[in-house]
């Protein structure tokens, strides 16, 4: 397909085919001062897509608390950075790869892990732990088994190969995910607090360098980028599925860490969604500079690629760097050692423009500010769903509750057998959760994973990922607040002090008012809980349109909580250790609350009622007490009561070492 075709002025129809509304296309023309050509249109469509611009969700994210004494980098960069003392910091983020994983579970999940790893090490950090939060349809649904098998194998295949331990997470099943599985991947890395690298393209004349895998036509089949002009032949060459190469990512990781030890780098960013487009534009936008790229110098994997394809390809394992002028050779030598494709592909300018050349000829020229700050921000209509009251009503008199012990026993067994509560060992046994010798508390052994700063200094981090999406369906604000509080409770139970969170906000179609209501309520709940617990939001991701034929997934604001532990040897696990030890309950056994409970769902197949009320003051005192007891070495087993309540909590404590317990509840 010739290049001239790509340089012809486009029409509003082509804008609509790229996912822009006619009004958005008009704004592009206004920003450009003329009709954009195909390359320019493709770039605007990618930068103004929901995924890159957060146009439907941005205004709600502003309410999150994002600063704090330990926060070195809040939202806006590739990952958030939090100080952990002694000149050390941790950086972390969570990303979603929901749609690709539904199409091709193995590669969709694998490339999700690869992407979040790059977001972390691009900040200059060595990744030391990963987690994931997965949602699948009902176990009986035809697709669930294949999706579960493929997603878990993909996460394991990529994570195990690159040598970052997968140390925790959660898996839940519900009919609302039948048509849309959720794959949220979390990674945390460690770095020196005075050596944080950011995605900025500053310094007039500095070289822009491409490193990593060669560029192919991966991911170009996606709706946002296709347009009718492409002939059948090129269309078939465009796989919608990206394939990850964990071996190459390991080389890329080691090369980048070696580059960070030189002082030759000015800025660096991974090529994630919309590949070269988002990385180059965002780096220039952050520095308020401009950039000139020679697209014909890009290392290519396929012949006959065009500027449009090169700018929008989503090939994996690629980074964009800006080095100090004159230090190019040093950078390229390191890439040579690690067998990575590399090329100087342009330079930083001060024009405030993105100039794209093709064999010396200017193929596209765009103003940078409209691409990032100029993206539309939508005030989508919000409306409380008509069915919300109905699902919140729960008439306990209709719920036949077991009265004798055999009835209670049977109920407990059916809850323990429910896929949401049952052991997930089948999943995490496929993940290498021990590599790097950091894992002091392994998956399944504690309410949170504990990872040592092996070799750096004493202490480590406590990590937990949580969200009860049924509660968020019944009351998005309260449910989301519970997700924050429960992840903090899990961190406290192992003896950690909650520091900060990242999140992955998975919701349905924002153009439906009830979905926007769910989203706005959940954001309100998260910011309220984060303020109460003093755990700011330092990074995150929004995934919308998780919906099929008008049926949306449960609102799923997944929370990733990071806590600090001063001495990893003084911690608590989840299992009873020795017969004869006393069992204590912290926080009183309040009046029974069955709203939205796992009991109702597993035994009576009902999802009704409202989640239990939240008392932040009491929550903080209970968590503080548990943490103090664990740190004093007085308590070596601690477990929070969540799905299934106290009976399930006691059962789970007993399973670990095959011990029992005598408990009087009066």
């Amino acid at each position: 397909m010739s290049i001239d075709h790509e340089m012809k002025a486009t029409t509003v129809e082509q804008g609509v085919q790229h996912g822009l509304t006619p009004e958005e296309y008009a704004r592009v023309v206004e920003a450009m001062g003329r009709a954009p050509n195909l390359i320019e249109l493709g770039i605007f469509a990618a930068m103004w897509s929901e995924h890159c611009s957060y146009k439907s969700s941005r205004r709600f994210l502003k309410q999150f608390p994002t600063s704090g004494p330990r926060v070195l980098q809040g939202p806006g960069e590739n990952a958030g950075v939090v100080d952990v003392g002694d000149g050390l910091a941790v950086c972390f983020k969570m990303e979603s790869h929901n749609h690709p994983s539904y199409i091709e579970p193995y590669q969709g999940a694998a490339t999700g892990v690869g992407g979040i790893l790059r977001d972390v090490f691009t900040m200059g950090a060595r990744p030391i732990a990963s987690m994931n939060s997965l949602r699948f349809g009902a176990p009986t649904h035809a697709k669930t088994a294949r999706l579960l098998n493929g997603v878990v194998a993909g996460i394991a295949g990529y994570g195990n190969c690159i040598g970052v331990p997968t140390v925790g997470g959660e898996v839940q099943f519900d009919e609302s995910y039948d048509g849309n599985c959720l794959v949220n991947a979390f990674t945390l890395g460690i770095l020196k607090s005075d050596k944080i690298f950011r995605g900025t393209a500053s310094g007039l004349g500095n070289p822009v360098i491409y490193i990593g895998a060669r560029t192919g036509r991966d991911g170009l089949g996606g709706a946002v980028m296709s347009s009718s002009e492409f002939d059948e032949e090129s269309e078939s060459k465009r796989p919608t599925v990206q394939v990850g190469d964990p071996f190459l990512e390991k080389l890329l990781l080691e090369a980048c860490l070696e580059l960070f030890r030189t002082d030759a780098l000015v800025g660096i960013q991974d090529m994630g969604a919309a590949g070269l487009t988002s990385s180059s534009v965002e780096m220039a936008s952050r520095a308020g500079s401009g950039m000139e790229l020679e697209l014909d110098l890009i290392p290519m994997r396929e012949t006959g690629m065009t500027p449009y394809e090169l700018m929008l390809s989503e090939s994996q394992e690629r980074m964009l760097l800006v080095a100090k002028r004159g230090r190019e050779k040093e950078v390229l030598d390191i890439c040579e050692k690690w067998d990575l494709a590399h090329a100087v592909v342009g330079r930083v300018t001060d024009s405030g423009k993105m100039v794209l050349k093709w064999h010396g000829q200017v193929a596209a020229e765009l103003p940078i500010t409209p691409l990032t700050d100029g993206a539309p921000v939508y005030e989508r209509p919000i409306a409380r769903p008509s069915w919300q009251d109905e699902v919140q009503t729960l008439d306990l008199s209709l719920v036949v509750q077991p009265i004798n012990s055999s009835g209670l026993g049977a109920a407990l067994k059916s809850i323990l057998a429910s896929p949401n509560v049952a052991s997930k060992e089948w999943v995490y046994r496929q993940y290498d959760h021990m590599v790097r010798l950091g894992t002091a508390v392994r998956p399944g052994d504690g309410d949170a994973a504990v990872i040592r700063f092996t070799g750096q200094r004493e202490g480590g981090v406590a990590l937990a990922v949580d969200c009860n999406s049924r509660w968020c369906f019944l009351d998005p604000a309260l449910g989301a607040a519970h997700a924050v509080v429960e992840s903090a409770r899990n961190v406290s139970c192992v003896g950690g002090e909650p520091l900060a969170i990242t999140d992955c906000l998975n919701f349905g179609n924002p153009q439906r008012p009830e979905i926007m209501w769910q989203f706005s309520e959940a954001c309100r709940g998260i910011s309220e809980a984060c303020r109460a617990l003093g755990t700011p939001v330092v990074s995150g991701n929004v995934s919308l349109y998780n919906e099929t034929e008008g049926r949306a997934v449960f609102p799923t604001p997944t929370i990733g909580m990071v806590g600090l532990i001063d001495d990893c040897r003084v911690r608590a696990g989840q299992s009873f250790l020795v017969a004869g030890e006393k069992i204590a309950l912290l926080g009183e056994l309040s009046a029974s609350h069955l709203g939205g409970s796992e009991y109702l769902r597993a035994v009576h197949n009902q999802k009704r009622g409202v989640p239990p009320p939240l008392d932040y003051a009491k929550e903080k005192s209970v968590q503080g007490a548990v943490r103090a007891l664990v740190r004093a070495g007085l308590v070596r087993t601690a477990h929070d009561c969540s799905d299934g309540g106290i009976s399930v909590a006691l059962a789970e404590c007993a399973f670990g070492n095959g011990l029992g317990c005598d408990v009087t509840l009066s």
Partner: protein
Amino acid sequence: MMFAIVVFPGSNCDHDVYHVAKHVLGRAARYIWHKDRDLRGADVVVLPGGFSYGDYLRTGAIARFSPVMEEVRKFANRGGHVIGICNGFQILLEAGLLPGAMRRNDSLKYVCRDVHIKVENPMTPWTRKYAKGETVRIPIGHGDGNYFIDDDGRKRLEDQNQIAFRYVSASGARGEAGANPNGSLGDIAGITNARGNVIGMMPHPERLAEKALGGDDGVRLFESIIEAVE
């Protein structure tokens, strides 16, 4: 006493062995890049776990041709001590320094958990700090640990006492369900060459060498080789 730890593109347990050798046991440890041809006065050469060359084609199939492997072969033939852990074991098999080959785990899934192994031969430089028949707890983390060797080869292994470890249950019994994590022939978990200076094992001793991580049954393997060499 210097541990030379070979780093292939795709190795990811190199720093774990380095940590145990240097920080836990206080011995010298040095990384050797797979393109180097100089083992720089190594007393023990370690081929660590990982996914050398992405384990493409077969686990360890490409790594065995790295320049350093020629040096490792000469070092081993001179009686030098070489240990291949997990992917390192697969590389030693592909290089012909140890007999047999690895297949996919019979579950077709990667398995990461503690297993129990029985010390079959305490008379090697690697196992002298263990008692004969002792059962120890060591973690595994692999997808291709299903060892195979033809009947003649197996007979030679047994006749020359080259089987170092076998998978057993926690109580030390053979053949119980779940004891053998991958279908390995004869529950074989680790073997040595006839001379005993080269060993390959699928379990990772370096992953359980500190009480802080839940146990230290693995550290005695390193202590054995230190005692044998120093």
